């Protein structure tokens, strides 16, 4: 592969963009999205607690398997999972390694860290599965139902609206810079020249973006006024309508019940 070609592929924000969009927008129909968001939040809260109740690695392993299956089912980005796994493993190894430098034992410290790290991993996988499986609309309704003010829940759905637009705009801006800049003639050792060039462009491209977003924000807030947004803040009826079609259905009950059975099944053999 020629330098040009490699360079181009690495710069292909296009494929990255596609991956991002799929993560953010392709969650219709996942299990988590079909649940009532309030039920899901409760379930999630429970999973923040459950791992801490056990020390037995067999139970923790079982729980990790369970949430990993859920993560796979809810189509979590593989990139995120890989990143997480990498982080977890290197974390334990590095701590253990530095412990050796401090005169301790590698195995002993790794053993001390493994249960703790496993618990954290269970929680991280759960978080990623729940929040990438749930549509932002449901996330903001869930938060709204526990009393978080609308300005903040609106921020979530607004971010959902704008993310691809802003990324597209940013991509365009990087392209404008590319057409006016000079690419490094050769990539250099470890392609450092290419990385520096890329980072320099990425940083510079924010300058025009700031102006663009400033204009957008202004029109958006104007438009919010004309659409009765501030009216809705004091209006109970409006809040009721926004949360009105949330109801706990059969599927929610099945899911909670099913989870309970699985968890009991994981725990019982070992206590």
């Amino acid at each position: 592969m020629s330098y040009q070609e490699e360079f181009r592929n690495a710069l292909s924000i296009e494929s990255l963009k596609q991956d991002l969009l799929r993560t953010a927008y392709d969650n219709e129909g996942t299990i988590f999205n079909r649940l009532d968001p309030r039920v899901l939040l409760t379930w999630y809260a429970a999973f923040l607690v459950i791992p801490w109740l056990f020390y037995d690695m067999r139970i923790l392993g079982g729980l990790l398997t369970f949430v990993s299956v859920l993560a796979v089912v809810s189509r979590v980005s593989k990139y995120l999972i890989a990143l997480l796994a990498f982080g977890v493993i290197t974390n334990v190894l590095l701590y253990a390694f530095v412990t050796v430098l401090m005169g301790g034992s590698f195995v002993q410290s790794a053993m001390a860290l493994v249960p703790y790290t496993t618990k954290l991993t269970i929680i991280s996988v759960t978080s990623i599965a729940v929040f990438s499986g749930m549509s932002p609309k449901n996330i903001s309704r869930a938060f709204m139902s526990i009393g978080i003010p609308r300005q903040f829940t609106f921020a979530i759905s607004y971010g959902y609206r704008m993310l691809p637009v802003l990324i597209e705009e940013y991509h365009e801006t990087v392209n404008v810079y590319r057409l006016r800049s000079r690419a490094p003639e050769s990539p250099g050792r470890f392609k450092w020249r290419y990385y520096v060039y890329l980072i320099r462009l990425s940083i510079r491209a924010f300058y025009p973006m700031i102006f663009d977003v400033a204009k957008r924000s202004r029109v958006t807030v104007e438009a919010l006024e004309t659409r009765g947004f501030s009216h809705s803040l004091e209006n109970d009826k409006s809040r009721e309508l926004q949360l009105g079609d949330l109801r706990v259905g059969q599927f929610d009950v099945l899911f909670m019940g099913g989870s309970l059975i699985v968890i009991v099944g994981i725990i019982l053999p070992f206590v």
Partner: protein
Amino acid sequence: MANTAIDVSDVTFRYPGVDDPILENADLRIERGEFIAILGGNGSGKTTLCKTFNGLVPNFFEGDFDGRVRVAGQNTRDASVADLSRDVGYVFQEFENQLVTPTVYDEMTFGPVNYGQDDYRERALNTLSQLDIETVDGRFIWELSGGQQHLVALGAALTMDPDILVVDEPAAQLDPVRAHKTYERLQTLNENGITIVTIEHHTEFIAEYCDTVALVADGTVKWKRPTHEGLNRIEELREHRIQPPQVTQVARKIEKGGSLPTTYADAINRYRSFEHETGQIDDHEIAREQSRDEPIISFRHVDHGYTTLRDGDVQVLEDFSLDLFPDERIALVGANGAGKSTLLRLITGIEKPNAGRITINETDTEDVLPEKLAADITYVDQNPEDMFIQDSVRGDISYYLRERDAADVEERVDEVIEFLDLEQLQDRDGRLLSVGEQRRASLGIGLATDPSIVLFDEPTGSLDLASRREVEQTINRAENRVETVIIATHDLELVAEWATRVIVLNDGAVETDGTLRDVFPNLDLLERCNLRAPQVVRLSDDLDISPPAMTVSELADRLSRRSPELKGVN
């Protein structure tokens, strides 16, 4: 008063931190059921005037406000924007930023839910079917085309059942056929009893659809008149940088006084009785002699597409081949989404073909980075603002040269600045210039690289007369320095005055390719491609003038030559 929808009296408004008021003693009265156009050049204050209707001025924009605005009998100062907005729907010029929720359905229900209306679902669904966009209700806003987004913004305003609807430049970003559809839609709404206010500077649309027209200039309403009467005041319109409809311009040249036609139908009736006679072809539109040997840009069996979330891979170009030669004035014309911009981006090398070859001066775009190609090619963006990446025009013009450690940067920049008369603007931030100035400055950025090819993407979008003139001059100047100029546009008036070769794109394929004279008379073909020939060309066709006139002066010459009796009659 019961029949008055909007009553603006003696309004003066100054934005905070600005010395001159944007509105000064403005008076305007709009009756219920009217379809009125607010006409004015870029920066005349027409948008600010319309923002007083729903109370954005002065309730949202703090500033010095004097005078009184009554909407549906209510003083806007005593009501909130949210309350007024139930009566006054508003579609912004930057409508994309008005859409604040992720999906079309959410957007449609956003207003009704905010106001706590139980029937929000029915309202949303009814509006969607009224606008024939039921099929997109589950789509993400960002997936939609600009035209669809505009419809959604319009629909979102309609879900509130407003009595008054204000639409800021509804046609600005649409191709001619879609623009007419939008106006037809507004006309239907008007027939159903909604008062419609559009902000517009395309007088052709005003003539066809609006009852009345108000001219706004220098922050005040100069007058409000029935459309026909208003558009007859040609000198005054021109003085305020408004271009009258082509038919009116033609009539002005051949008739010395009296009432001039403003709509197309008027013009036909007026001139139908004239006798027929074949005219002489003006020579400037005839294709230049070409040495058809070495193309400067060549597409060979190119496939190109992109991936979408919903539909997988979408092909824009399939087995596409085209040769472009030096010294041509090439117009790539086509409706929104026909593939014009894709073509330009492929030429710049920013996008690469999935299959096939594109060569620029015999260099395959696959083999080099776009950074390299940029030495030969300048791309002038559709939105000139996007070209400014530095904090001064001068900085932007010199950026490319500095990046390449060019010799005598300052002299070269000075030379470009002088060539384009940018001396006054060179230290200002490009983003804060007027649209016309931005176009000029963006060309300066391009010319600094000494390119042989200049690509203009939609150079005349949303410009008033004066700014349009500036663009036309700019393009002509560019031609003196470079080998090939390519313009992608759906503005066929611009094409008629300039191009030697017209390539009509439709759905990513070349529908036809020839000289101006070959292509423009084929009205059916243009219509099929969602394009519409300039009024003078259609008028020539309907009057059986052959070959058809391309410009206003040409048709005027032809008509006056043909009809000596006209002068006698008048």
